């Protein structure tokens, strides 16, 4: 196993410890759940990193149709969806105790995030519809490039036009001062750590898929 994986393991252990132990300012309604920002938000960052990776490998596949690029595109899309699911579930639990409901249709970011997940579910469904390997890889790659372009619109552009319960989701608050400095101390390392973790899971995933492909190229993934 490569060294960077051990660094990620130690890094994230420190992030989890720090996330629980540091002093955080008193924020009404949120109270101690403000610590969720260290774990909920990085899930989405990891998802973006994976979907971007997936898109890059889809473009590379269209440039030179080698099976490994298709395998990597699929593996990273799956890992991205896993992190997205974690983001949805943690967000839902957090919403119950701060916004008072598990799910609300008044919150655009929540619903559009679920829609983004559905777009990637469609990617996997589309893949399963083809028996011919080259055809599947090519059409899936084209769809995947379309899919990733919806992400910034669904999760940033559209929610900013509407009123949102997410702090700083409406208007144009990018890198504004609404997140307390103490929280950022853990939040940024957490984002970095979970993105690195997503690459670790993706690494295992695409290597496993490549081994499977080498043993039996005909097998559907």
């Amino acid at each position, binding site marked *: 196993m490569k060294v960077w994986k051990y660094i990620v393991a130690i890094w994230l252990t420190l992030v989890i410890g720090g996330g629980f132990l540091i002093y955080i300012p008193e924020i009404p309604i949120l109270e101690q759940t403000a610590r969720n920002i260290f774990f909920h938000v990085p899930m989405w960052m990891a998802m973006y990193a994976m979907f971007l990776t997936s898109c890059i490998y889809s473009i590379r596949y269209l440039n030179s149709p080698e099976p490994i690029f298709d395998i990597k595109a699929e593996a990273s899309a799956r890992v991205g969806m896993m992190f997205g699911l974690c983001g949805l579930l943690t967000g839902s639990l957090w919403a119950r105790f701060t916004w008072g409901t598990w799910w609300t249709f008044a919150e655009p970011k929540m619903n559009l995030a679920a829609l983004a997940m559905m777009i990637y579910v469609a990617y996997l469904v589309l893949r399963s519809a083809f028996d011919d390997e080259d055809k599947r890889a090519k059409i899936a790659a084209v769809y995947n490039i379309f899919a990733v372009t919806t992400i910034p619109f669904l999760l940033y552009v559209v929610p900013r036009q509407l009123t949102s319960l997410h702090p700083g989701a409406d208007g144009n608050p990018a890198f504004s001062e609404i997140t307390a400095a103490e929280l950022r101390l853990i939040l940024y390392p957490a984002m970095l750590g979970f993105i690195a973790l997503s690459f670790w899971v993706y690494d*295992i995933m695409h290597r496993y898929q490549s081994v499977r492909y080498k043993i039996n190229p005909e097998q559907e993934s």
Partner: protein
Amino acid sequence: MQIDSTAVVDTLTQAYSDVWAGQESLQEANAFIAFMYSNDLIYVVLGVTLIIWSVLLFFMIRVDKKVASLEEKLNSEEQ
């Protein structure tokens, strides 16, 4: 050595009494237990999270190594 344990130890009335026999008072608890009780029990949550994280890590490292050995096997077969 306990010779007549059933007669000596009355487990029932103690186990079903209002006070749980295993519950220590904070004064007589050792430093670790006292620490875990402090700050509204937040350290218990941290402990649970760290247990989950370490088991998950252990599992991932194992799978990673298994895939690596499979890759090695495949590569040596090809040559």
